């Protein structure tokens, strides 16, 4: 398992009230698996994905990412786990407007102290279908293209895991479908592990496995063909 968590809890204090954003979740994700996390707003999707991607630490529970125990690590230690292991895509693309597509894609290498390799950057851009947009700036791209740049930025580090939090939230249906097709391609061709949160059940069923959350707990976990069947029935 590339990610394995047991009894994961994440509580927040809001005034005198304790918010149980995640309340005892057990999860295991295999290398090369594409997993969708579904659920209504406030169900704990983003909290779970933040824990699995080492952006946040659980209040309780054990969590292993790429073989390392990450529960109880400090923020600086979590960065070390993330570096080169996890790539991120968010609903907001957060591309730097003054940088070209190529420069945006190569940005993480600056922090990893790796020298950019133009051939590798070209390969990644070709993979996401933006080979001809390398010199463009974000304001010259469509929403779908900007999200592809964000995906390329996540891929440039050769991460084993790609985490996507509502990646199609700002896209139209056609662009959203294209992004999910790209994810499938990456899983199939590159053996990438992809974890996605989404509101959109149709897109969610494109994954190998669908986990449904409600009130901070997993209420359903099923393979996608089962999910699709149930959805159609």
């Amino acid at each position, binding site marked *: 398992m590339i990610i394995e968590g047991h009894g994961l809890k994440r509580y927040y204090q809001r005034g005198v009230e304790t918010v149980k954003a995640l309340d005892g979740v057990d999860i295991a994700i295999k290398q090369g698996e594409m997993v969708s996390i579904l659920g209504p707003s406030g169900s704990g999707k983003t909290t779970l994905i933040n824990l699995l*991607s080492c952006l*946040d630490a659980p209040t309780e529970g054990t969590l292993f990412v790429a073989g390392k125990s990450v529960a109880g690590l400090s*923020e600086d230690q979590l*960065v070390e786990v993330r570096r080169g292991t996890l790539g991120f895509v*968010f609903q*907001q693309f*957060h591309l*730097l407007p003054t940088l070209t597509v190529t420069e945006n894609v190569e*940005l993480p290498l600056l*922090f990893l102290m790796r020298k950019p390799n133009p051939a590798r950057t070209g390969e990644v851009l070709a993979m996401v279908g933006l080979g001809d947009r390398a010199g463009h700036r974000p304001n010259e791209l469509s929403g779908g293209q900007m999200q592809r740049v964000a995906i390329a930025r996540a891929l440039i580090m050769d991460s084993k895991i790609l985490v996507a939090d509502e990646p199609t939230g700002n896209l139209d249906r056609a662009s959203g479908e294209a992004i999910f097709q790209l994810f499938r391609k990456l899983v199939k061709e590159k053996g990438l592990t992809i974890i996605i949160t989404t509101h959109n059940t149709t897109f969610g069923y494109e994954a190998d496995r669908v986990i449904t959350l409600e009130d901070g707990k997993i209420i359903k976990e099923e393979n996608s063909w089962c999910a699709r069947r149930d959805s159609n029935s």
Partner: protein
Amino acid sequence: MFQFTRFIGLAIKNLRRRMIRTALTISGVALAVAVAVSLGGFMLGYKGAIDKSIEMLGFQVMIMAKGCPYEAATMMLKGGTGLIYLPSDTYDKVKSDPDIESITPIFVGIAQKEGSGIRDEASQEKSFTIISGIDAPSFMTMKPWMKFKGGPGFEGGRWFSAGSKDEVVIGFEAAEYEQRKVGDIFYASITPAGSMTPVRHEFKVVGILERTGTQDDGTVFMPIDTAREYFNRPNQLTILGIKLKEFNQFKMHEFESRWLKLPEVQVVGLQQVKNTLVALVATAQTMIAAVAAIAVIVALIGVINTILMSVYERTGEIGIMKALGARRRDIFELIWLETLVICLLGALLGCLLAMLGTGAVEKAIKSLANLGVNGSIVNITPGVLGYAVLGAVILGFLGGLYPAWRAASMRPVDAIREGAV
């Protein structure tokens, strides 16, 4: 060890995102630096100008009529009105003092140049010139560097013969202003003491002096007896310039004690005058420095504000950068570097502004106050520029600390969430 060069390109591109805001912030720093550089140049230049002016007077001690010694000293250095006079027998009493190496009597008066100068005729305005009545041999002992100008029209320059009544020697600038050459006629209207009516006199120019960079350049010299006669002050003089055989504080004190017993005179050491002039100007400089310091603080607050705004605007991006592997230190360096770039560019622009504006600053200072010196009073040296740039960089380091710390401390989860709003 920080690796600023790694992020320099990114920092500059970040600053270019809000070009006008960045340019305004840089301008604020530039203005503050320009003020600081001009002030530094003025402090340095003024002290140098005072030193030079006093050295070029040629004597260390002045004996003059009682009154404000500094006003009198300033008059000697720069020229001025409100002259008071000594009885001329003071010279006879003092000249035999055993500590004196050389002594020269000087009579200073102000003459009207109405209708005499070419430029005056064109403008139909009155102007004045300083007349210095001197004893040429003893005066030249004090100022051996004074030379006559050569070249076409200036050949054969010489000092007037003692007692001559129609010969003058003109300083470099006065000659240029009046467009006089050796052999020309120079007119001056002198109002004798006790009269209200100026009397026009005609002089022959017998020599034009080389430039000395002192008040002498704007002076018209004539024999002391002639000057006294025309100003109708036959038994008076303005100062006695004295060079002591041995000049130190002790000897100066001794000399001063001996001659202060004369009721009508005061003894003024030029070192003392210099210190007082510098101290007087230092008070003004302190006030200007305070204004400059406020300008620097305001500029620094502007820089911090700009960078903080930029950090808040980029909260989401900072969160993404941290998610993608940026350490706290990386974000700190990046934001700190942006502050430094603003301060450094501001400092360089400020230095350029100060250098280009030296002439204007000098003109403004001279028009506002009589500083008692001729020549350049603003001296912007590489040292002054270096300190200004260094100071701006240090302020940049300090000013960048808080925004950089603030950005570096953001939790990626919170930053991404806030940035998504």
